[in-house]
């Protein structure tokens, strides 16, 4: 595993635009790009074979019905998705990631967990934008609980995903309950990481230095 924790900073460190560039040229990412293209093909294969199966078992009428339902849903969702993706880009430009790292790296205690949760929830984009922040947090001196709370908050109560995807797909009842019941999760994960694994993490960090 050629992970970069505790090793010299990768080329993209501290500079979002450089990070973006390295995203499309780094060797790791080429592999991921290939993976992404493959996943489209897999989706296509699944859709086709499922469609053929529906045709075989339920007749052409059922296929047509499913396709129309799909088109209706796509038309409903597209305007929301376009707005949401624009939003993600705008937030990325407005809130530089070094700012987040500096702000969080030095806070500790329960306050640190809370701040990490808020920052994680407000971080837009996929793993390519969140994990570099976690690395930056690590280098700015954040503890394992803060990092875990950040990743958990970003993934489970991300505001960006809520605005872009969940509003488009789910009724308000479902998304409100889902959001509220997920709010405590980052803090809980952060506390567990701190309580059970802080020593294991620190010992490994000391062994590296």
């Amino acid at each position, binding site marked *: 595993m050629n992970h970069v924790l505790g090793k010299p900073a990768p080329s993209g460190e501290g500079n979002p635009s450089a990070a973006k560039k390295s995203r499309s040229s780094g060797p790791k990412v080429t592999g991921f790009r290939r993976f992404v293209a493959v996943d489209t093909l897999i989706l296509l294969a*699944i859709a086709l074979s499922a469609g053929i199966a529906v045709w075989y078992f339920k007749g052409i009428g059922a296929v047509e019905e499913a396709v129309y339902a799909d088109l209706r849903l796509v038309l409903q969702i597209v305007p929301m998705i376009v707005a949401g993706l624009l939003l993600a880009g705008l937030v990325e430009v407005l809130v530089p990631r070094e700012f987040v790292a500096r702000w969080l790296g030095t806070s500790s205690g329960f306050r640190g967990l809370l701040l990490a949760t808020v920052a994680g929830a407000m971080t837009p984009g996929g793993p390519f934008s969140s994990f570099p922040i976690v690395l930056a947090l690590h280098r700015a001196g954040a503890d394992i609980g803060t990092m875990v709370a950040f990743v958990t908050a970003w993934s489970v109560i991300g505001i960006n995903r809520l605005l872009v995807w969940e509003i488009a797909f789910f009724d308000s009842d479902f998304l409100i309950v889902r959001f509220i019941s997920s709010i405590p999760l980052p803090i809980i994960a952060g506390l567990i990481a701190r309580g059970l694994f802080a020593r294991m993490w620190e010992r490994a960090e000391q062994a590296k230095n």
Partner: protein
Amino acid sequence: MLISGIFLWSIVIVLSVIVLRKPGANYRRALQTFTTQGRRVAVRMPLALLAAGFIAVLVPQEVIGGLIGGASGFQGIVTSSILGSFIPGGPFVTFPFVIALKNYGAGDPQMVAFIAAWSVIAVHRAIAWELPLMGPRFWFIRFASSAVLPPLAGVLAALLWAAFGSHT
């Protein structure tokens, strides 16, 4: 849907004005994020919706209802937590499947656990991003600290719905 659309577009307009007026902020970079992301989504989302729709027609409703239906209780919450962990891809792939599952009788607390597991455990993301970038030790600690979260979210959601009774 209409109201949330207006809400979303208003935020976009406000933020656009801020970015355009702020010296040094780069509107073109914001658009770049939009186009790269948009290209990823444009093909995959309709395909995922279609695949999810077809599969939902094929899988008997009783099977979904029995495994992860509203009456499946805590066992269904655990089952959907495990299922959700292995769903690959972004929200544009996963949410269509959640919609299809919901239409075919999956329970709401079970789907809350499903989405939490897909978000937090995310086996595909661990393999593609977390292990290479953060290393196995970080992944292990994060996984061990998060494993209980999806069922917990499902239980909390069930309690919320029970408390407020808006759920049928």
